[in-house]
């Protein structure tokens, strides 16, 4: 089954996960890298052309070898020096890692880069792209042969809480131990649902909005039971705002 996350469970029972990069993002990174390679080759060509004044033969030989080394060595050298990143991958926050979470080895980098020869067949990485699309970990043939996977470190932006919270009094915070329990029991996915429902409140019909907030609020009420003085007299929507304040803002 295709998955968007690489989950690794350590022998200690700790699970850490990383987001797997999709084929489109990888293709864009590859496009940037190809552009960089062309720039390097152009600069090298200019320098070598100066040598042609002395000997055209040697200049041509240097260009042929330089072209070969740059086009093959670019990925190997940068991924080794930057621990799994090239310029394109760095810009798009991608990184090559070992599929089992082990240290990325030089020979893995060599194998995955050499196998670009088949992945790029017949043109524009068609074979690699199709393999990537079909593979559960979005690996191209080079990744499969090298036991590597490309992961993505998206920039995690703090949610714009001021937009939904507005600095109002939060009755739930009057009971710090219960607030702490609510924070502990609320998963990131649950908090994200509540946040999205508030951010997109104007998109719902009034009746549907009330029903939605009621359903979500009931879910959070079932997690931790607050005393009546904390919840009486506030709407389900305000209750959700208070829940989000507790979940996202750890400062009391």
């Amino acid at each position, binding site marked *: 089954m295709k998955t968007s996350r690489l989950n690794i469970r350590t022998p200690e029972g700790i699970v*850490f996960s990383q987001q797997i990069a999709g084929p489109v993002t990888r293709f864009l990174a590859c496009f940037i890298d190809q552009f960089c390679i062309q720039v390097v080759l152009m600069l090298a060509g200019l320098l070598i052309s100066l040598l042609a004044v002395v000997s055209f033969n040697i200049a*041509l030989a240097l260009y042929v070898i330089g072209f070969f080394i740059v086009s093959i060595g670019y990925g190997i050298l940068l991924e080794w020096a930057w621990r799994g990143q090239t310029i394109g991958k760095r810009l798009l926050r991608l990184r090559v890692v070992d599929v089992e979470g082990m240290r990325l080895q030089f020979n893995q980098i060599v194998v995955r880069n050499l196998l670009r020869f088949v992945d790029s067949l017949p043109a524009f990485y068609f074979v690699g792209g199709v393999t990537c699309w079909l593979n559960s970990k979005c690996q191209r043939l080079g990744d499969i042969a090298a036991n590597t996977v490309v992961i993505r470190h998206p920039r995690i932006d703090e949610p714009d809480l001021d937009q939904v919270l507005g600095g109002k009094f939060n009755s739930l915070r009057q009971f710090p131990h219960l607030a702490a329990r609510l924070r502990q029991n609320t998963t990131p996915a649950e908090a994200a649902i509540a946040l999205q429902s508030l951010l997109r409140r104007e998109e719902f019909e009034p009746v549907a909005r009330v029903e939605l907030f009621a359903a979500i609020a009931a879910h959070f009420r079932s997690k931790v039971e607050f005393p009546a003085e904390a919840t009486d007299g506030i709407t389900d929507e305000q209750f959700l705002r208070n829940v989000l304040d507790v979940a996202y803002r750890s400062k009391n």
Partner: protein
Amino acid sequence: MIIDLQKFIANERPVWAELETILNRIEAEPTAQLSLEQVQHFHELYERTAADLAKLATYSSEPETHRFLESLVSRAYGEIHETREKRSRFSPLTWFFQTWPQTFRKHVRAFYLSLAITIAGCAFGGLAIAFDPDSKPVLMPFSHLLQDPAKRVAEEENSTYDRLKGQKTSFSAELMTHNTKVSIFTLSLGMTWGVGTILMLFYNGVILGAVAVDYIHAGQTKFLLGWLMPHGVIEIPAILIAGQAGLLLAAALIGRGQRAPFRTRIRQVSGDIATLIFGVALMLIWAGFIEAFLSQYHEPVIPYDAKIAFGCVELVLLSVFLAKSGRKNPTA
């Protein structure tokens, strides 16, 4: 368990910072050795950070801290649970005289298979030319090989000018890069469960066999040997070794008769594949020089006997090198 997040992060941050410092040092100096106490301390820091990650896993707040801890734990996990031998400081001489020939011998059966496929191709190409000379344009789609061998030899031997004058260096560079690309391609096709590698080896054999029979049939055996041997005795084994690497990859992919899981099989051979292909690249650099600077010159410039003798010496040296270099002395 309920935790005071701010206090928890404030308390644990020094532990995470120390772990990060050690990881940075290990990653910057892969050859550095930690003492037993340092390893134990490193392991303690890893376990504590991993436990912190588990505690924070359910929190919606502090997403950056959570991601930072995931990154730290994954890096430390890779260092602690990595069972492959950590490479000591790379020594080109040790690699050349020990690692490469040892790797070749370790997988010599794949080399023999690569050789057998090429010989089968040679036999097919040779027989095809012998029984059906009209098949030459189909078997050898290279214009310079389609010429009548006797006519070509006469032209080469009577030539008064050096057709590679002023181009030898660039010609050798083109040969090196082209042959290296073909070798990498042969290796890469191992990912087709070896089918592509086998086809490449067989096709190379077909061309070689067809050319050989064509020249022998025309009575130009000595020219053929003098032309091909100086570079061919290195170039052909290089392609065979690339085929060996491709077949190795295919064997790991198929896993017939192996109980290890797929990832383990691949992990076991990836280092050897890289070693073999780097060795192939070195061989092709040498072959490229020889082909441009020696093979293309014939009698009366260079006697055929001298070229054949040079090729024989190269072949013997290569065979001895691959068979003996880096072999541990059993009496030592």
